[in-house]
């Protein structure tokens, strides 16, 4: 088998470079400064996140990836205000944030629609919390429901919807508050492959059409490359920024690009970062022969 010659993932075509230059000119929406998080656990003090620094610009799409246990969920929960950092700061529009608020919309991996409210009332929830009248909230909510293509299901209850539809409602619900940034914590992780790629297309479509900055957590490399402008790669133990990659795949993105040289080059780089070559004594690298002999003589066979 011959190895295909891939360009460097750092190589950017002129339009892509121009786009990144323009993007970095835009105002900073979210800034994370020296963010750290430590937990008290039975094994003592555990450092989940250590000195995280990054910025997202207006209308940027940032994905966060990393091996399991790298603290990506903790990071997004801190950004949402659901947990507080042990050190460092989160700035939204240059102002520090501490508590959860409607200026940072959140879409969770699990389905968090309110089961007692119809689709319409779920989307109206945030608007009502902010004191909009029922009528205003309703017409506003209907716009967002239409945007995610669920107007026929406005009166359905969440349990009547499929997983993908539920997440579309969750996106509409978060966007209805007109947040400055949309935080998404592996939102498509529980969906099957087909629904997932459809949802990715949908999300890109929505993102292109409205003024929204997105920070998206995933462990799926293809998903990250397909969606993101930049990918924040974390490493585990402790969770630190490994690299912030500018995705060189041109926009508009489409599924045909999955085998383009830029895509593959980026993917190769991500794989190197996330799955470094394993050593022999690595627990993940168990030999098949060892798995086959379970008993007293589980010795390493040389």
């Amino acid at each position, binding site marked *: 088998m011959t190895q295909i010659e891939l360009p460097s993932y750092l190589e950017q075509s002129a339009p892509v470079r121009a786009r990144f230059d323009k993007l970095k000119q835009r105002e900073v929406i979210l800034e994370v400064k020296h963010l750290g998080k430590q937990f008290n656990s039975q094994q003592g003090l555990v450092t989940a996140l250590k000195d995280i620094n990054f910025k997202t610009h207006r209308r940027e799409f940032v994905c966060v990836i990393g091996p399991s246990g790298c603290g990506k969920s903790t990071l997004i929960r801190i950004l*949402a*205000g*659901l947990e507080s950092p042990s050190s460092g700061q989160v700035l939204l529009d240059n102002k520090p944030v501490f*508590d*959860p*608020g*409607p200026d*940072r*919309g*959140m879409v*969770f991996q*699990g389905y*968090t629609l*309110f*089961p*007692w*409210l119809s689709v319409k009332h779920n989307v109206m*929830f*945030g608007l009502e*919390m*902010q004191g909009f009248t029922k009528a205003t909230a309703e017409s506003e909510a209907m716009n967002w429901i239409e945007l995610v293509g669920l107007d026929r299901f406005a009166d359905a*209850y*969440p*349990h009547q919807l499929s997983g993908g539809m539920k997440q579309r409602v*969750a996106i509409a*619900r*978060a966007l209805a*508050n007109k947040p400055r940034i949309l*935080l998404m914590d592996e939102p498509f992780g529980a969906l099957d492959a087909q629904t997932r790629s459809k949802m990715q297309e949908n999300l890109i479509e929505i993102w292109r059409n409205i003024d929204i900055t997105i920070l998206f957590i995933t462990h799926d490399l293809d998903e990250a490359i397909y969606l993101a402008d930049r990918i924040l790669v974390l490493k585990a133990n402790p969770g630190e920024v490994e690299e912030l990659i500018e995705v060189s795949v041109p926009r508009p993105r489409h599924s045909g690009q999955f085998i383009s040289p830029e895509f593959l080059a980026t993917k190769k780089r991500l794989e190197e970062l996330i799955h470094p070559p394993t050593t022999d004594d690595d627990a993940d690298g168990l030999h098949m022969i060892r798995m086959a002999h379970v008993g007293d003589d589980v010795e390493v066979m040389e």
Partner: protein
Amino acid sequence: MSRATRWFAVRQALSKKQVTTLTVLSFLLPILLWSLVSYVPFLWHPKVEIMEPGSIAWFKPGMLVDRADFTEQEQLATEQQAALPTGVRSNPIYLPAPHEVAMAFYFAFTTEPTRSSEQWLHESLWHSIQIIFWGFTLSSLLGVPIGVLCGTYVAISKLHEPFIEFFRYLPAPAFGALAVAILGIHDGPKIAIIFIGTFFQQVLIIANTTRKLDVALLEAALTLGAKRFQLLFRVVIPGILPDLYRDQRILLGWAWTYLIVAELIGTSSGITWFITQQARYKNFDNVYAAIIMIGIIGVVSDLLLARLGKRLFPWEKEQVKV
């Protein structure tokens, strides 16, 4: 065999027909057993009902004697060549036959009470239902809010639950004498016993139900801009409502179990008075009728509440009963 006709597949749903059959059987089998014991003379029937006393002086027509005594007297009479007593095998007085209870059930509502001071069965029942209603309502008025608050705010939980946890081990009837001393001999102490029996369990159960609400829903609400009381009134309460309703149905059943004890306190009243009174007159058919009546009220009211629940909470997924 097709899936639907299999009767003993582990935790597999049965067909509608199978379920109906089993439901009917679950009532029919005990009734059948009861009928067998009542109507088949050689099954059990440890007594003999005297028809003709014959020469036996202490036998009276209609009297129930042990079978051994009867044969002994019969033998004695044969030896003395005196007139033989006759009788038929019968069950003890405390086990009336199904048809007797069914008749009592009917007559209990149609015959006037023997004494003018006494109440009709339906009046006794109505009185009992009122005791339950007030006991349970008062308990719920306090217990539900406290339970919800305990389940929502840790501070409130830590303030209330340790004491309630202790208090719930004190048997409610133990407070009978105290309740009479404080509340008099009429309905007051009875309602108090139902209250004590229900309230403490209620707070703990509802607090637990509240705690089981998915914390992700609260987090979602927070990120949507909900604040303190909005969280309580717009998320916690609607979120637990179907489960809270189910808890209340179970607790109502518990309230009924305290009824008999409660009604014995002070002046005996309601269905308990009816049962003890009828037992005193040895009208055991009436006693059974009254006990069955309590069961019917319980099951029917729970069925109605379950139906109502389905209407009230249309967002609840179909509950799979296994």
